[in-house]
């Protein structure tokens, strides 16, 4: 477990607001998100699609498309505010100090270049080695991520690899420059269940070996339970709960987290029917007033409709954005 009190975070996101300016209006995809990432730990960011979790990670990398703008906030990495860096300085960080892997290895690899080519590219760019050396390093990386016959695979195109192999190649690519932070955006969602577990194991193993911090973005509480040290729950552009993973799984203090946890099938407890959270994620152009979760919340009262709750520390290092978190104290996650 990470001793949060006595360590300097490697990444500190402060009040990040990322808005998209569309023809229909302003989409407040990320609306005031703050969290810290400590060296070597895994932070899980969990939420439904449209909650702003992917936009948060793209904001850190500054890879938003032209309509997306970071309107305020700070992203402090090793003492520097990434939002104040020039594009050139940012390029030296991308792929080198902060790397990212994406959801669909199918579409995240360029179909017209070989796997080796795509791995070597980052190595040559950031490490200034020649092509021959880069190729050797690429083969070593492929071996390390468990791809059989790496000497042969290095010259193959993405379509010649299976989905799991492709995701391994993506991981090899992301790790090629030994980044201190790896952001994984739903890295296992597109894979078969058996492959999912293998990829997660591989990521944990490599994380320990390289000592890097990992931000795992997922909608899957099962993945969070498997890999995360701490977890940030996102809903409609806000963080709604934030704390250590065991703490949050045992004592959720936000109705949304409570709902997410209740909707996981469990084998150890008798369940008649799986619970689900009623309704859907609100329209980002038109978030509800007050607490953004209130229309779907079984604990909502009048106050929730008009007043927006703040993040409060409900237990040591455990934060919740709910007026009535105490109501959850008596409930045990079923």
């Amino acid at each position, binding site marked *: 477990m990470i001793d949060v009190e006595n360590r300097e975070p490697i990444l500190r996101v402060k009040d990040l607001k990322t808005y998209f300016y569309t023809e229909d209006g302003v989409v407040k995809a990320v609306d005031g998100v703050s969290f810290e990432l400590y060296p070597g730990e895994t932070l899980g960011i969990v939420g439904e699609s449209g909650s702003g979790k992917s936009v948060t990670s793209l904001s850190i990398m500054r*890879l938003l498309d032209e309509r997306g703008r970071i309107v305020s906030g700070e992203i402090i990495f090793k003492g520097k505010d990434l939002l104040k860096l020039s594009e050139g300085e940012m*390029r030296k960080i991308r*792929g080198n100090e902060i*790397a990212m892997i*994406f959801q669909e290895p199918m*579409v*995240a690899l360029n179909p*017209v*270049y070989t796997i080796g080519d795509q791995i070597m590219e980052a190595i040559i760019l950031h490490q200034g080695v020649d092509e021959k050396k880069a190729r050797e390093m690429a083969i070593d990386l492929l071996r390390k991520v468990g791809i059989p016959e790496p000497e042969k695979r290095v010259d193959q195109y993405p379509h010649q690899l299976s989905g799991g192999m492709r995701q391994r190649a993506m991981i090899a690519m992301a790790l090629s420059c030994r980044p201190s932070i790896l952001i994984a955006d739903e890295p296992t969602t597109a894979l078969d269940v058996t492959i999912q577990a293998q990829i997660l194991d591989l990521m944990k193993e490599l994380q320990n070996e390289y000592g890097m911090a990992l931000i795992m973005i997922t909608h899957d509480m099962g993945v969070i339970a498997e890999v995360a040290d701490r977890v940030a729950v996102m809903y409609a552009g806000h963080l709604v709960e934030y704390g250590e993973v065991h703490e949050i799984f045992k004592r959720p203090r936000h109705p949304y987290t409570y709902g997410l946890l209740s909707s996981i099938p469990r084998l150890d407890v008798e369940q008649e029917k799986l619970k689900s959270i009623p309704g859907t994620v609100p329209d980002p152009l038109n978030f509800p007033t007050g607490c953004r979760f209130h229309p779907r919340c079984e604990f909502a009262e009048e106050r929730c409709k008009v007043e927006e709750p703040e993040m409060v520390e409900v237990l040591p290092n455990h934060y919740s954005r709910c007026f009535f978190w105490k109501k959850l104290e008596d409930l045990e996650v079923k």
Partner: protein
Amino acid sequence: MTAYIIRRLLLLPLILFGITLIIFGMMQLLGPDRLLAAYVDPDTFNKLTDEELEALKEKYGLNDPMIERYTKWLNGVLHGDMGWSVVGKMPVKDALLQRIPYTAELALYAVFPVVGIGIWLGMIAAVHRDKFIDHAIRIFAVIGWSFPDFVFGLFVLMVFYSWLGWLPPGNLSLWAEDVVKSPSFHHITHLLTVDALLNGRIDVFWDALRHLIGPITTISWLWWAYLLRITRSSMLEVLNKEYIRTARAKGLDRRVVINKHARRNAMIPVTTVGGAMVINLFAGTVIVEVIFNRTGLGRFTASAATQLDYAAIMGSALFYSTILVLGNLIIDVLYAVIDPRIRLG
């Protein structure tokens, strides 16, 4: 891939056989009387008696069954004799050989600017989407897109020949033609501009080029517009792909992302359309040669068609079909070179 190319080349004679048979058959629908008109000038034709007409039809073999006549034509072609061109007043083979360089020169000059400029402008428009330069390029494209080439050609003639006197019609000025026809002028490639340079005649080169600019622009503009639009939309689609984000996430420079990762993928649909376009460019030469009064295969084919000079029509058809088939083969091979997912077989 070599096996594939050989297989496709072996198919070529079969395809040509089919095409010529169809065209030959269609011409027979005209009947022997209309076909005879090509051999006799109209004034004497009207004075001929029925017996004389019959005799002429027999003489030219126009009463024979179609298959027999096609076999005769085919046999001739296989022995290097493509028949007599009434329009060209010489054997079809000589008429074609004489004119192919003129049209080839026009087409070659048109192809490279079309492909180069069209793709280049399309890339710029896509990369600077919705900025001023994108709008400017798209207006340029709309102009090309909305003018048929024959209207555009006449417009070019009116402005640049009639008003400004810069770009004259024809292939060469009279003085330059004398130079080219003189024995001291060596015909090495048969392309006027290239030969002029090889002979060290900058003045002839410039004269030939001046005559080419109008036709080239006329042929090119429509295709520029077309290629530009396809490149732009293909590029925009590719720029939104996840692998572009992956490339950027590696810390690659924007220029590398666009020129390496995006361009090659964007070129896949462009190759298909662009290749077909280049082949169609030969069709464009017909109209342009007529409008600009240029000697060339296009104008020759047009006159042959209107005067029912069937041997010349067959000869042109054979040439254009060969270009078409070879062109398509080149596109298919290029396609496989660009996209590793395509396997020829």
